[in-house]
């Protein structure tokens, strides 16, 4: 019953075009996921630090940013960016740019919460000790608090990266040719949905499951140190 020939015949297209993004369509799950993770995390650090700022002028907007994006579905955010950016810059933006912008803005809210929780998990005495030996607040943050906070954050960070990796499949809604869209394209021609969607499910699973294994190992190492 299970006709795996359809998977084998279209393996090249789905993996090279859909997963890696090498081919005529651009696209690619990895080509979207990796920059989205890196940029989302960097913006997330800024958001997390802003939420802990002393001045309410920074703290309150950052809090509103986080609460807003955590209360709205990602699909909605993708549509916002899709309609708004062309209005603002008067240029047609490729799907890649739209998807990347949406993911970075959306995920930064979640990364921001992780960063904030990580920083707050560092005992207050550490900051006081750093200040006592003459570091400025910025130096204390950079050399004392952040390195310890990062270690505490690792498990939740990797979980969030896995979530983001899975979320990249939503870029196919606006026509970005990632792994999901590639399977859809193949399915339109072959009409073998069971095999094709099960196959990409396994590909996604291999990636996310190995990420979670790495996370577990990092966690154990962090606990031992």
């Amino acid at each position, binding site marked *: 019953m299970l006709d795996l020939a359809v998977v084998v015949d279209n393996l090249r297209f789905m993996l090279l075009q859909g997963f890696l993004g090498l081919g005529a369509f651009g696209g690619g799950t990895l080509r979207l996921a990796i920059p989205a993770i890196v940029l989302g995390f960097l913006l997330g650090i800024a958001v997390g630090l802003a939420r802990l700022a002393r001045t309410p002028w920074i703290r309150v907007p950052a809090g509103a940013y986080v609460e807003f994006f955590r209360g709205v579905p990602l699909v909605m955010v993708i*549509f916002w960016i899709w309609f708004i950016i062309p209005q603002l810059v008067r240029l047609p933006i490729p799907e890649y740019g739209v998807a990347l912008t949406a993911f970075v803005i959306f995920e930064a809210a979640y990364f921001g919460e992780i960063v904030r929780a990580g920083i707050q998990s560092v005992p207050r005495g550490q900051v006081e000790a750093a200040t006592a030996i003459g570091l400025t607040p910025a130096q204390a943050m950079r050399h004392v608090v952040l390195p310890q906070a990062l270690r505490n954050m690792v498990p939740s960070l990797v979980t969030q990266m896995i979530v983001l990796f899975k979320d990249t499949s939503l870029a196919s809604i606006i026509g970005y040719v990632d792994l999901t869209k590639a399977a859809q394209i193949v399915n339109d021609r072959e009409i073998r949905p*069971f095999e094709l969607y099960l196959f990409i499910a396994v590909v996604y699973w291999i990636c996310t499951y190995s990420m979670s294994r790495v996370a577990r190992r990092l966690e154990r190492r962090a606990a031992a140190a």
Partner: protein
Amino acid sequence: MTYQFQWSVLWSGQSGSWLLQGVLTTLGISALAWVLAAALGILSGALRTVPWRSLRAAASFYVEFFRNVPLLVWMFFWYFGVPPLLPRPAQEWLFNHGAEFWAGTFALGVYHGARMSEVIRSGIQSIPRTQFEASVAMGLTTFQAYRLVIVPIALRLIVPPATNESLNLLKNSSVALTISVAELTFQTRQIETYTAKAIEALTAGTLIYLVLCVSIASVMGWVERRVRIPGLIARGG
């Protein structure tokens, strides 16, 4: 040319009834999927902690496989992949009774069941092992100990993370628009298509989601205070 705002598109014509239908469909699919997710989550979450290896393995397989694959892929799988394999009468019944709605409910429920399972498992694991040992020592079977002691305590401990997960379910119901379930995001897009007023339509949809999330969160905050176990600080999650 600058963008001309025209907020009246939201209450003129059919937009109002579309939005209302969208909200009702979103709530309907989320509620049904939530019931399925809670049942699967409690069952598999409890099974992951029982003393029998094969049951633990089966529950782990369910959780690890369904949780680690994008919801969108599950939507396509349950909507396009599975119905052709069903017997003919079942297929006909499905396609006469809104197959996309049932496939969407199933995809959402099974996916979030696996995520809920993790919440419940960590709740169970935060209960001291002595509770289980005491129940068994009193003569309860393992099943009775779970049904009467372990699961009820765990459910009271996990209200905050379970609320979080339920809100995720509500927001993720928007993914069902890809298999053309006429939920809130779908209707928002429909208004945009008919009126070409993207910003107004998206604002309405976004505000409705925010209101839904905030109201559910506040109701659950009340539930959390009601069911809190006095004297117990440890929380699951």
